[in-house]
């Protein structure tokens, strides 16, 4: 078990998300940067699907109540273990009573903490991913006690071989497919999408990222249709909204682009004022 001394800004338990309930309107959820959460699990020899703690912007202060092993990946939140600096992408042994502290993210946005065997919070609809209306909480709170799987500390303690390399999220390039309504755009709009850069606005969260500047637009709404994490919507007022892991299952704005899976992970490491450009792949 892990006691939450400070919950951070937006910290939640996440895994690969819920993939079989979208037809009931249930969002996929899951780790914003799936690559980094899988890496954290891989370093410990966990399964991809094991639940991790996701933190955004400012991390948590945690007290371990049982021994375990941990790995930290994603954004660098200058983690310390009992006051000593520790590094991302490494394995650490944890003793009962140890205190793990994260600060503000220096590069990137989302940091992942995996524990050996994974977090053991309640499974709802096949996933532990927090989502308001499905799990009792949407974020963790001060004083929460998070269940984890425990394992014997005797025996092997070595970093698992992982084919995954740490995620370099300095790139600004988001690879995209054309969306269902892309063909309705004017030549000028298409040109703007592919030949100019955009900045992440101050409106970004697990549900969506709004980009700036707006582009001129007179396309009306569409008959509500399916959307996915990574769908780029164009609002009637010209706003570009990139849907993320907690997005609704359907939407009524024209879907002009669709991010590749790895570009969703990349965008999940961007924050306000970061620059992105769209690159068409096929």
């Amino acid at each position, binding site marked *: 078990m892990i006691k939450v001394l400070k919950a951070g800004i937006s910290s939640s338990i996440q895994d690969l998300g819920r*993939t*079989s*309930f*979208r*037809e*009931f*309107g*249930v*969002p996929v959820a899951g780790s914003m940067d799936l690559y980094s959460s899988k890496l954290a699990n891989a370093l410990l020899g966990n399964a991809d699907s094991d639940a991790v703690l996701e933190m955004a912007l400012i991390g948590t202060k945690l007290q371990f109540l049982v021994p375990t092993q941990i790995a930290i990946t994603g954004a660098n939140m200058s983690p310390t273990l009992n006051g000593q600096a520790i590094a991302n992408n490494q394995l650490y042994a944890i003793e009962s009573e140890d205190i793990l502290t994260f600060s503000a993210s220096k590069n990137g946005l989302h940091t992942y903490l995996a524990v050996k065997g994974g977090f053991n919070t309640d499974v*709802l*609809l096949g996933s532990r991913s927090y989502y*308001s*209306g*499905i799990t009792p909480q949407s974020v963790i709170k001060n004083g929460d006690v998070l269940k984890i799987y425990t394992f014997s500390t005797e025996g092997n303690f070595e970093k698992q071989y992982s084919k995954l390399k740490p995620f370099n999220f300095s790139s600004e390039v988001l690879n995209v*497919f054309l*969306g*269902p309504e892309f063909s309705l755009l004017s030549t000028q709009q298409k040109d703007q999408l592919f030949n100019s850069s955009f900045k992440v606005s101050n409106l970004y969260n697990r549900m969506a990222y709004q980009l700036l500047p707006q582009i001129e637009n007179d396309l009306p709404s*569409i*008959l*509500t*249709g*399916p959307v*996915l994490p*990574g*769908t780029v919507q164009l609002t009637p007022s010209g706003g570009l909204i990139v849907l993320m892991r907690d997005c*609704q*299952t*359907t939407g009524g704005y024209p*879907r002009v682009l*669709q*991010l*590749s*899976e790895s570009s969703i992970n990349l965008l999940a490491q961007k924050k306000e004022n970061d620059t992105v450009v769209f690159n068409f792949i096929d």
Partner: protein
Amino acid sequence: MKFQLKYSRFGERSILIEWPSKIDESILSDIINYKQYLQNKLVKLKVEIVSTYNSILVSYNFTIENINDKISDLKEAYLQIDTSKQRSSTLWEIPVCYHDEFGIDLENLSSAKSLSKSEIIYLHSQQIYTVYFVGFLPGFLYLGGLDKSLHINRKSTPHLNIKKGAVGIGGNQTGIYPQNSPGGWHIIGQSPIDFFDPKSDCICFAKAGDKIRFKAISKFEYLRISEEVKQGIFKLKSSSYD
């Protein structure tokens, strides 16, 4: 009836299949048949299928390497569907309390549409609605069939916190908020039942193709049903509908 469908890649793992862009019962029926056929055929592949008014989204759990092959398979499947099969659907009776305490926008709606409150309640509850799909929020039903005289633009200033169970009207649609949420619809009543329960075997009782009718109930009945729902003993009335 077979339609001319449009198949296109939607990102790395999905294919979007589109019918003509309109709200239409014959399109819905075709979508449901196709969706069921695909769900049975692709069950082993862990494929996820979402449908809306005029589209089906087929999402694989891997990157599609050869998009043309996958599209041919889907087209082939469409030709295999037996369209003569009669589908039976379920008609659900949804209790709604249109008391002023809950119908916070009834007064405004009444003056905007020059209809008395009881006329609005009558028009809203005598209709049989079709469930087109579930989306927006877990358990939110997209319903077709709202009487034209009740169509009204969404509110210019949305409500910041609409209560779970609130029944609203927005544009040409009516629906029930399955959880607390901000929203721009005009709220005319409140249903005491759950539209989504992640802990139940049947997380959302209604599905695309089902029918809904609203039954006006008193505040007393509302409180009684709320209590029964809380205790887990309330049973929703339903009948088969052809």
